[in-house]
């Protein structure tokens, strides 16, 4: 009876993954994740002690005695994705529909609204949020490899504001300067290369910690603004 409703939930939130407000897979910053999930990781970690008998957070920590699958990279993971695990018919059905775990679906699952009686219910609304925040932070998938990340054409096409870009570039100028060697010059880079590189830093596909940090809080528009500024001074 409930399944069609559940599929509807998943269809609206899961199907259009990349655009879904409830699943921004690029988030890696715990604070941003906490804001998005509406919980506190520290509180969730305490609550998770009731879950850990059945669930490991990462595949390498999974024990054969555990009743539930590991939760590695759970957000964005296909339903019933862990090989060799005996899933319930309800979950198998969702799997057949190509459903993907994301925040709303997980919340409904923990609440007992999605597939009642297949999973213990977590009664408190805030408790569910805290647990999901913690699990999300603790099970972040490894960053994509450099070169693996494709910046969508509509993001590449964003027209940046060069005046804002000039202001933002003052942060870069503390280390990068024209023609210098030890920190690469960035003022003459190809626009698409520059934008892709910044997205790679933001997704942690590049390793420099300083650049990851700087890129972490740049929006798509701000990256475009920087690119527009650097193009304008060529």
């Amino acid at each position: 009876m409930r399944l069609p409703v559940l599929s509807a939930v998943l269809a609206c939130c899961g199907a259009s993954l990349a655009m879904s407000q409830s699943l921004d897979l690029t988030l890696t910053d715990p604070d941003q994740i906490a804001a998005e999930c509406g919980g506190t990781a520290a509180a969730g970690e305490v609550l998770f002690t009731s879950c850990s008998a059945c669930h490991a957070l990462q595949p390498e920590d999974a024990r054969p005695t555990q009743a539930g699958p590991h939760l590695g990279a759970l957000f964005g993971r296909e339903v019933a994705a862990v090989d060799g695990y005996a899933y319930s018919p309800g979950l198998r059905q969702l799997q057949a529909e190509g459903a993907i775990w994301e925040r709303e679906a997980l919340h409904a699952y923990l609440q007992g609204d999605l597939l009642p009686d297949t999973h213990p219910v977590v009664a408190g609304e805030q408790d569910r949020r805290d647990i999901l925040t913690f699990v999300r932070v603790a099970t972040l998938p490894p960053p994509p490899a450099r070169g693996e990340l494709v910046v969508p054409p509509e993001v590449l096409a964003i027209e940046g504001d060069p005046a804002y870009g000039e202001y933002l570039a003052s942060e870069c100028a503390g280390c990068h300067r024209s023609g210098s060697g030890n920190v690469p010059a960035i003022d003459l880079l190809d626009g698409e290369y520059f934008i892709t590189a910044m997205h790679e830093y933001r997704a942690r596909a590049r390793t420099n910690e300083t650049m990851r940090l700087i890129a972490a809080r740049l929006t798509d528009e701000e990256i475009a603004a920087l690119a527009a500024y650097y193009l304008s001074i060529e």
Partner: protein
Amino acid sequence: MSFDRRQFIGATAALSATLAAPMVRAQARPRVVVVGGGAGGATAARYIAKDSDGAIDVTLIEPSRAYYTCFFSNLYLGGFREIDSLAHSYGTLAADYGINVVHDWAVGVDRDAKTVALAGGASLPYDRLILSPGIDFVDGSVAGWDLSAQNAMPHAYKGGSQTELLKAQVMAMPEGGTFAMVAPPNPYRCPPGPYERVSMVAHLLKEVNPTAKILIADPKEAFSKQGLFEEGWATHYPGMIERVGPEMGGADISVDPQAMTLTIDGEATPVDVCNVIPAMKAGRIAEIAGVTDGNWAPVNAADLSSKIDPSIHVLGDSAAQGDMPKSGFSANSQAKVCANAVRGALTGSTVFPARFSNTCWSLIDTDDGVKVGATYEATEEKIARVDGFISQTGESAELRAATYQESIGWYDGITADMFG
């Protein structure tokens, strides 16, 4: 030229005394006076001059003709840099950016008349005053030490001759002698600075005087990048460095510059070099201007304006701004936010939201570089930390070497960003 200019200034000042000030200021070229040509002040002056394209009259007051950076001064101690490579002139700021560089001390600020008095006697009017005077030392914070003892026991915590003096003293240490450091209490400029210094002195001593010892008296329980430094010291300089923390009396010390002793918890130790880094406070001119509260000058996070006088901005080490460490990187970052806001206030240019960042690199030994960094935002209350990272213990030699190379690039970048 100079006559016309004085006439012009005099006329404006007289007018603004009688007319509604905003009217007059809207017609004249607005004036920004910057006190202190260091990481904060030079950057602010350069950005305001550069981005306002002559619409703002920028004066930079700085007594020294050459600015010797404190950043990388430890690398000079370790033998990785020449002292001359740390010196920067104000020539480009004057020649290419049209900044009026005045080599003098600011000795007074009249906040009602909005003028700055110089030691040479001149009085400069301002619409906005930016203070970035760095630090001064808290009198009496190290028993037995005052500024008159800075030759016997150098602080080397302001750039230039003090750094050269300290190095000369290290080189002159007797075989197997003791280098002592009195580390400062929080908050102070460059949190990892004293410990990077210990690393660099150890590096030098390992080459020229390998049986020498280093003794640190430290009033702090813990210090910046402690795990990284302690790991590095154990690897590169085993047995050479001893740190006495507060639990062992590191906060209960005195020095005798004549006898060359350091007394910790009542026990006097003869030392050959004693690097005394006293407690710090805002550069004196901030106090004279009346914008300090206690040792530091409280500021609003969005534009670094003083919480006491909105026409005055305080940057860098002198400011009590919140979560940013007192570093050259921070001062440079704050200066750009301030410059954007000051320009907006005086010329109506767009003011973009404040964003700050900091990274501090330290060198532990040859090609063993580490770093710590964070991003910050402006809240109502303070500059608040957003996110950060720190180098990890046990990193590969390649990564450490790359981090050191990056710091050299940063040095070139920030000094170009300050001085053009």
